[in-house]
């Protein structure tokens, strides 16, 4: 029996499998979540263990506006996916633009916060354990925001060129899953760094 054999399959049977894009992204999110968990564990473990100042209580203030912006960008990207799904090009461009804008505001506030921490309060990654864990955790999250923003900016570009059609809605949905994850991580980072840690 050197030739390939054929096993017939009963074509009347319904055979539906999950989308590989969504499964792949879910797996990536699981792996990324594990990375974040390690950084968060390190942050919590080192709360109050810095040998020198400044302490979180001295220098951190609640980034309420940035948080509102980032969390609402989850909504706007969701609306963008819906708009692509039904083929409304202008609407999808608008929602994507809003998402990129909100994400950009979040990044800008983080940048300003870091600028003040470094130049006003003299806190760098070398200063103490707080600086070490703060910049690495918030920086890891900000890196994910930047990656997401680049991808979303490309999606916006495609949408403006009119290349984003309903058949691409699943791809945008995969990207939006990543963005929701980035937002969800921020909720945890916010609670740990700005509420629990302060």
């Amino acid at each position: 029996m050197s030739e390939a054999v054929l096993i017939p399959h009963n074509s009347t049977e319904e055979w539906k499998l999950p989308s590989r894009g969504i499964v792949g992204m879910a797996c990536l999110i699981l792996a990324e979540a594990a990375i974040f968990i390690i950084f968060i564990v390190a942050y919590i473990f080192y709360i109050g263990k810095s040998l020198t100042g400044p302490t979180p209580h001295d220098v951190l203030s609640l980034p309420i506006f940035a948080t509102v912006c980032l969390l609402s960008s989850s909504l706007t990207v969701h609306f963008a996916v819906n708009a692509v799904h039904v083929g409304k090009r202008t609407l999808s461009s608008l929602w994507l633009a809003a998402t990129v804008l909100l994400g950009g505001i979040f990044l800008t506030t983080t940048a300003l916060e870091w600028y003040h921490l470094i130049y006003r309060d003299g806190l760098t990654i070398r200063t103490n354990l707080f600086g070490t864990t703060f910049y690495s955790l918030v920086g890891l999250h900000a890196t994910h925001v930047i990656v997401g923003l680049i991808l979303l900016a490309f999606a916006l570009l495609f949408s403006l060129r009119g290349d984003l059609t309903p058949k691409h809605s699943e791809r945008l949905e995969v990207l939006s899953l990543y963005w929701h994850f980035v937002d969800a991580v921020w909720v945890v980072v916010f609670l740990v760094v700005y509420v629990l840690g302060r």
Partner: protein
Amino acid sequence: MATQSPVNAILDETTSSSTHPSALQILHDWLTTADHKKIGLMYIGYALLFLVVGGFQAILMRIQLAIPNNHFVSPQAFNQLFTMHGTTMVFFVGMPVLFGFGNYLIPLMIGARDMAFPRLNAFSFWIAAFGGFLLYFSYLGAPGLSGAGSAPDVGWWAYAPLTARAFSPGHSTDYWTLAILISGIGSIGTAINIVATILCMRCPGMKLSRMPLLVWIYLVMAMMVFVTISPLTAAQIMLLLDRYLGSHFFDTQAGGSAVLWMHFFWVFGHPEVYVLILPTFAFANEIIPVFSRKAVFGYPAMVAATVAIGFISLSVWAHHMFTVGMGPGANTFFVLATMTISVPTGIKIFNWLATIWGGKIHFTSSMKFAIGFLFQFLVAGLTGIMLGSAPFDWQLSNSYFVVAHFHYVLVGAILFMLFSAFYYWYPKMTGRMLSEKLGTWHFWLFVIGFHLTFDLMHIPGILGMPRRIYTYEADRGWMMWNLLISCGAVIQTVATLIFVYNLIWSYFKGPVAGADPWDAWTLEWSTTSPPPSYNFAVIPGVSSRRPLWDLKHPEDPDSNYE
């Protein structure tokens, strides 16, 4: 018996009628391929290359330790040898060879034409391969401008604060960190691919409850990779920040904790052992039934035990840290968790025994290695129970007893089952059978060498010989044991060389295998050996766990019983 597919014959003719490709074309073909079978073979070839390198390092260490006060290698070189040996064997032999088999077999076994993301697959392979070469480039590149250090010498677990800039000047530790970080990205990419392939690419009728056990176990293994490799990636990022930006994660002088690194490393390190051994369980689940001529015993129990191992293995890591002083509460928890994991593992062993029981056993080379695996895995598990109890571990932690225990797992179980898998699937991959005569020599020599080395290695451990020493005094009473251990290592080397010779000789001269040399039951045996690049001319459909049994025995198909 079989329905011939006309489409297949037409497609085959187009490939065979093409002109003979030049060496450059073949190279281009392999370098740019996104075919899961070629990538799988490259993973396996790359792992075999590093297996030879890692084995060579082991031989150098055994020559050094064979007699007391030996000066065969310097203390510095010895430190580099055990660091490179451990790192190579875990990250650049174990992971790639198992991913290689998974890559090759999973799409064939579930009736798919490729992995879910072929290009991600190629990316993952090449970045993992780059990691391996980066690690070895340290022999050349690590001295750098400062001229300090050569290859990494911090041990494969690289405990803090030895890895700090002050204690590891030069770039050797950076090469170690980056090599592992990069190969970890490749591992996560391949694991994503495996999960997406298994969940989204199954042929019609291949429900989860009908998947071959190999595919099930690879699914669990890939899920574990996400929560195992990622913590290591995070810890390596922290180490890089410490070394390059002056942060203080593991800097004890600034209040940082060296024990935190131990936790982060072993949160990776212990589940990693299960990531490595689960695929060999997967091979056993395919090979033992075929050579016992019986369906596997207790399919649902096997799946449940695999998932249980996956979960429990995440809660046992600190049994590597009993001597750190974690306190009685933590010690008790990790002792109990470690004992618990032997329950699902025991279920597996009993299921394999029950599969063999009453079967018509075919003692091929593959089956011999599988039986060796069963026996030696059991012994490795027993010393695991010993070391898993904290008071015993306090006595023997960091001794050669520990080295003997984990080599019993890694060589006695994992490597034996890998050899078994080579004898079993080599015909599918190349179209030729491996020589059974050479296989028998390989098996018996390897069994003798293995037991000589690793049975006896327990004894100097009990006599107090610590691991990672480059030499010892003659009056310690360890000399005879070490000499015998080194002799066993030589015998294993000879056996491995016979195996490598067999691989090469059989490729050209071995008997032609045909599509289904073992009269097996899973889908990979339904296509030609080696399979065409599209795997299946027509996507098959299945109605039971053993589709080829159904095809060969239409009067009594498995679907009547499942």
